[in-house]
């Protein structure tokens, strides 16, 4: 097996060998490697296939910008992760990784045929091709596209890992632990500011930490030595927290940032166990210093995507940091000085290399150094083509014309096994723009730079466009002093020697003799978009960068165009003949690098996903086989199947029992608001449609609450406990909203009212007993209470004790039966319930759930707000004009009840429906029409509630129908998939119109 690890470095422990599997084969790396460096050490460049053309692709970079080396990690159903960048993944013993987007394997991939038919799949291919015939979409195109779409595989079972969230507050947050970040953090922390420094790598130091060129020195030391010293210094600072392996994912307003800390991803399986995998930091910082650095740009030329073609600086890092050479015969292709550092490093380690430089000449110290070492430099040359299928083996260069627009002279063919490209540097302005910052364009070196506009945030170092060391240190120090309003002198006398120059010759799309249509000049490696695609988009009329991006998919892959966006912009600007600065950029959106869902969700999974509210009686319901229904956060018994009953049978039994003898319902979840104060009655007058002043103490009244737009909002019974004390009930789901609405009016519109509101929903448990025998059961529970209709009539309230515990008893009914609601302090709720059940045994007291409750109330035509109403129903639409006071001067929503729209006669109105076939049960939500022949069919309304009534032995339904009030007796049609159901409009009350049962 080849070994490309050619020398020792302090970051790699060669004595500790780490075995890992890649595409099923076992390899060895060293402790300190990333998966990418370990693969390169084994001579493996080919790591995947491109998305569209399935071209062989190799490792390009050494960081977060990597477009090609993305792998599937692990292969368990619950523990596998797609799209992990090999350049960021730290190697660990037993790591299993595989390449993506290739079948049967990365070396021989069937999809590679796409490369040969590529002229047939230009930009916008999908939009243009899969348009017709229409019938092909569902059966042919979609399944085919789905088969070839997507890069990795998602896990199919729940994630067993543990994730965590943490909230922190800091005076200063420094993003990025390169040289400028380290200086900034030191300055802040030494000035008594509580500081957090985060960096996504394992160790601090950025790209300076492996910088060892003699031409670049600080205080007469190699820059990496100087920086190591600084790192030792800052580690001693007590008010500085350093978080490595932590990357900022999102920068929101008000300096609120999200960071992902990797805790176990670098550990072998057995050490990962029972540990938190990743932690999401929610950071609030008074000031944020962005020092995210810059990334090297590729160059755009024909076949610039072959395995073995990397960014020049990445070759340098693999060499000086990981001790790995990317080849034995390397060519560096550049338009600036950076590649010379790589070249000199390679040369010193004995790696043969030469340089192709787009510039006509350059005279910095670095270049002189390279020349004196005898490194061959081709000035004013351009790479025009590369060769080698699974790895580059040679390339062609040609001389550039004077204006740089064409090539001249003869081709020179050079052999190589690796090519480094350096197109200059792109400042990482993601954080700045995510926070809302704007950008300026610098024409000299064609970069977008942060436009400083905030007192809470600043960018320093190369992410601010300061590329040479002298600039980085001086400017960073000055800016930080000003930004933090401090006077730090630590770097006053720092002596910096940097002989690199910022001169470059920028050509976005390099010239070539071959027509563009026959070249493959890749811009976005992962999504396979080429210079040709961008030009085609422009030809077809796309102008906005946002449109070109979506049409060509440039920058839309998992790397979000970190390497490609600038080239796309540059080519658009050149082609359209506009200045690049005027084009703007596409929007930088969070997250900076992909986040796992686990990190976002943290601990809120499984039973912690949402709050569950249970009544005091809940355990009894569980013991008695209840099926539960979620109502808001509450768990409510839905029905109680007995002896294998289905839902229908259980509900029929429960409903019949409640009317024949007695039924009991857990009504604890109804919202309860305690209202006190001398203006309590006036307050109720204003919030309900009916009048409240004359309600006697000890009496109950049903109220309907509207929104200011006149639409029904909530309903419930309110009891006058004493002169200035009411207890309001609301719907279960509406309780919180009603309380906040009432508070709103009290605090903002009517602050003069003396009223206090308290939510007491959870304070009381409620058992509701109804049916002809309910009075007898109550008598057993409260033998001293006079239950006669004279003393305790319908809609009244009494207090009594149950074994010395106070109970509030309301005689109110939602079923139309004689009915009592017993309220007791919640801690006694379970006992109350059991005592009721015990007392009711001899009367076949049947516990029933919400479904039976809904059925019983529908028999009586009582509405359920939210089921029979939908925010567009007025009281009049519900045929409830009787509850709207004509005398009251004002109440919430009153004025809206006679707006031109609310008095329309043809509004949808609540009606009853009876099916011609009494056995036929309508579907809730079904559409209602009067005529199925004329098309389009005029929709008159829909069914809101529908049941089979065991007490009437027929199907009943409530519905909203246009002009329904005037349609009683009229025939309508409910068209269903297979048949039309004939119905007749009826009254909304189906049972006991005279309310005889209430007092029976």
């Amino acid at each position, binding site marked *: 097996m080849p070994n490309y690890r050619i020398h020792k470095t302090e970051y790699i422990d060669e004595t500790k060998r780490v075995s890992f599997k890649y595409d099923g084969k076992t390899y060895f790396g060293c402790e300190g490697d990333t998966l990418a460096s370990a693969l390169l050490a084994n001579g493996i460049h080919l790591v995947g296939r491109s998305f569209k053309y399935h071209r062989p692709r190799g490792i390009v970079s050494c960081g977060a910008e990597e477009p090609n080396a993305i792998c599937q990690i692990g292969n368990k159903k619950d523990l596998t992760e797609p799209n992990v960048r090999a350049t960021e993944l730290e190697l660990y013993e037993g790591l299993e990784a595989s390449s993506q987007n290739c079948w049967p394997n990365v070396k021989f991939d069937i999809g590679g045929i796409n490369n040969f038919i590529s002229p047939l799949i230009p930009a916008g291919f999908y939009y243009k091709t899969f348009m017709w015939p229409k019938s092909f979409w569902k059966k042919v195109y979609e399944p085919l596209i789905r088969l070839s779409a997507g890069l990795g595989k998602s896990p199919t079972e729940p994630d067993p890992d543990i994730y965590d969230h943490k909230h922190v507050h800091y005076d200063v947050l420094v993003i990025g632990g390169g040289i400028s970040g380290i200086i900034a953090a030191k300055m802040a922390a030494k000035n008594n500011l509580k500081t957090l420094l985060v960096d996504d790598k394992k160790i601090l130091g950025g790209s300076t930490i492996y910088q060892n060129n003699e031409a670049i020195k600080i205080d007469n030391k190699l820059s990496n030595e100087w920086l190591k010293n600084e790192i030792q210094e800052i580690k001693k600072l007590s008010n500085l927290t350093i978080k490595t392996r932590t990357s900022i994912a999102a920068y*929101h*307003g*008000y300096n*609120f940032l999200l960071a992902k800390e990797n805790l176990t991803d670098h550990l072998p399986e057995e050490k990962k166990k029972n540990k938190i995998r990743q932690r999401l930091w929610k950071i*609030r910082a008074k000031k944020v210093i962005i020092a995210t650095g810059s990334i090297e740009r590729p160059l755009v030329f024909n076949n610039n995507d072959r395995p073995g073609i990397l960014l020049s600086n990445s070759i340098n890092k693999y060499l000086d940091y990981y001790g790995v050479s990317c080849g034995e015969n390397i060519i560096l292709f550049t338009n600036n000085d950076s590649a010379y550092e790589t070249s000199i490093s390679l040369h010193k380690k004995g790696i043969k290399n030469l340089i192709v430089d787009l510039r006509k000449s350059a005279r910095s110290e670095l270049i002189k150094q390279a020349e004196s070492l005898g490194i061959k430099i081709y000035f004013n040359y351009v790479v025009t083509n590369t060769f080698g299928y699974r790895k580059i083996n040679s390339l062609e260069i040609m001389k550039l014309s004077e204006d740089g627009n064409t090539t001249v002279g003869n081709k020179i063919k050079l052999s190589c096994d690796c090519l480094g490209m350096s197109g200059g540097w792109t400042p990482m302005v993601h954080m700045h723009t995510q926070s*809302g910052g704007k950008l300026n364009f610098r024409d000299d070196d064609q970069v977008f730079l942060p436009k400083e506009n905030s007192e809470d945030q600043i960018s320093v170092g190369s992410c601010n466009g300061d590329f040479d060391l002298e600039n980085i240190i001086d400017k960073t120090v000055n800016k930080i002093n000003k930004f933090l309003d401090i006077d730090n002198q630590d770097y006053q006398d720092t002596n910096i020697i940097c002989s690199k120059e910022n001169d470059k010759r920028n050509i976005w799309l390099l010239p070539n003799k071959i027509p563009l249509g026959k070249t493959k000049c890749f811009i976005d490696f992962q999504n396979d978009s080429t210079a040709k695609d961008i030009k085609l988009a422009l030809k077809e009329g796309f102008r906005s960068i946002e449109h070109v991006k979506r049409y060509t998919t440039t920058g839309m892959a998992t790397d979000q165009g970190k390497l490609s966006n600038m080239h796309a912009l540059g080519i658009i600007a050149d082609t359209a003949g506009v200045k690049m600065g005027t084009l703007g950029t596409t929007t930088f959106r969070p997250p900076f690098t992909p986040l796992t869902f686990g990190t976002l969700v943290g601990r809120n999974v499984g039973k912690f996903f949402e709050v569950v509210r249970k009544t005091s009686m809940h355990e009894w319901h569980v013991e008695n086989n209840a099926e539960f229904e979620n109502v808001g956060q509450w768990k409510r018994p839905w029905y109680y199947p007995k002896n294998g009953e289905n839902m229908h049978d259980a509900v029929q039994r429960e409903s019949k029992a409640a009317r024949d003898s007695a039924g009991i319902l857990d009504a604890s979840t109804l919202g309860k608001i305690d209202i006190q104060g001398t203006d309590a009655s006036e307050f109720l007058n204003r919030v309900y449609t009916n009048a409240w002043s004359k309600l006697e103490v000890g009496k109950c009244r049903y109220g309907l609450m509207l929104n*200011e*737009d006149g639409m029904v909002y909530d309903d419930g019974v309110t009891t006058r406990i004493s002169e200035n004390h009411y207890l309001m009930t609301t719907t279960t789901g509406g309780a919180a909203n009603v309380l*906040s609405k009432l*508070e*709103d009016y009290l*605090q*903002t*519109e009517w*602050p003069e009212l003396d009223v206090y509101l308290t939510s007491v929903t959870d304070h009381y448990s409620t058992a509701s007993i109804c049916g002809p025998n309910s009075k007898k059961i109550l008598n057993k529970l409260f033998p001293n209470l006079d239950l006669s209709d004279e003393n305790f009539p319908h809609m009244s309230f009494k207090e009594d004790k149950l074994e010395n515990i106070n109970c509030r008893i309301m005689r109110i009914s939602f079923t139309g039966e004689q009915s009592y609601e017993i309220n007791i302090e919640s801690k006694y709720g379970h006992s109350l319930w059991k005592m009721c059940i015990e007392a009711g045994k001899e009367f076949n007291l049947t516990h029933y759930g919400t479904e039976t409750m809904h059925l019983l109330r529908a028999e009586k035509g009582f509405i359920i707000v939210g089921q029979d109403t939908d925010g567009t129903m007025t009281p009049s639409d519900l045929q409830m004009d009787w509850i709207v006071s004509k005398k009251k*001067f*004002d109440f919430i929503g*009153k*004025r*809206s009840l006679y*707006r*031109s729209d609310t008095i329309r006669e043809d509004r949808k109105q609540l009606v009853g429906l009876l099916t011609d076939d009494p056995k036929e049960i309508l579907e809730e939500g079904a559409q209602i029409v009067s005529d199925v022949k004329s098309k389009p069919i005029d929709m008159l309304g829909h069914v809101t509630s529908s049941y089979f009534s065991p007490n009437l032995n027929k199907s009943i339904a409530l519905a909203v129908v246009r002009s329904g009030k005037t349609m009683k007796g009229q025939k309508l049609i409910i068209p269903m998939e297979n048949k039309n159901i004939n119905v007749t409009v009826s009254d909304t009350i189906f049972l006991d119109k005279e309310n005889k049962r209430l007092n029976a």
Partner: protein
Amino acid sequence: MFLINCPFCGERDQSEFSSGGEAHIVRPKQPTELSDDEWAEYLFMRKNIKGIQFERWNHAHGCRKWFNVVRDTSNDKILSVYKMGEKPPVNYK
């Protein structure tokens, strides 16, 4: 995510608050005397300006108090916070 300085509790995370839209829209004292248009003006019409806007906020998961906020909607900066019933600061007209 804003930091909102509740006048009763101090600085808290936005997630504790709910927004109540434009401030200083007074509910008419005699709605019955208004024409449909006048009532609609109160009921539906909101400015929704880009720039300095006066808003109502409620510390829903805190003290439950409503209060007023002056916010620049173009950059989300909260410029001032004051209690219900207090006069809006004059320098932000």
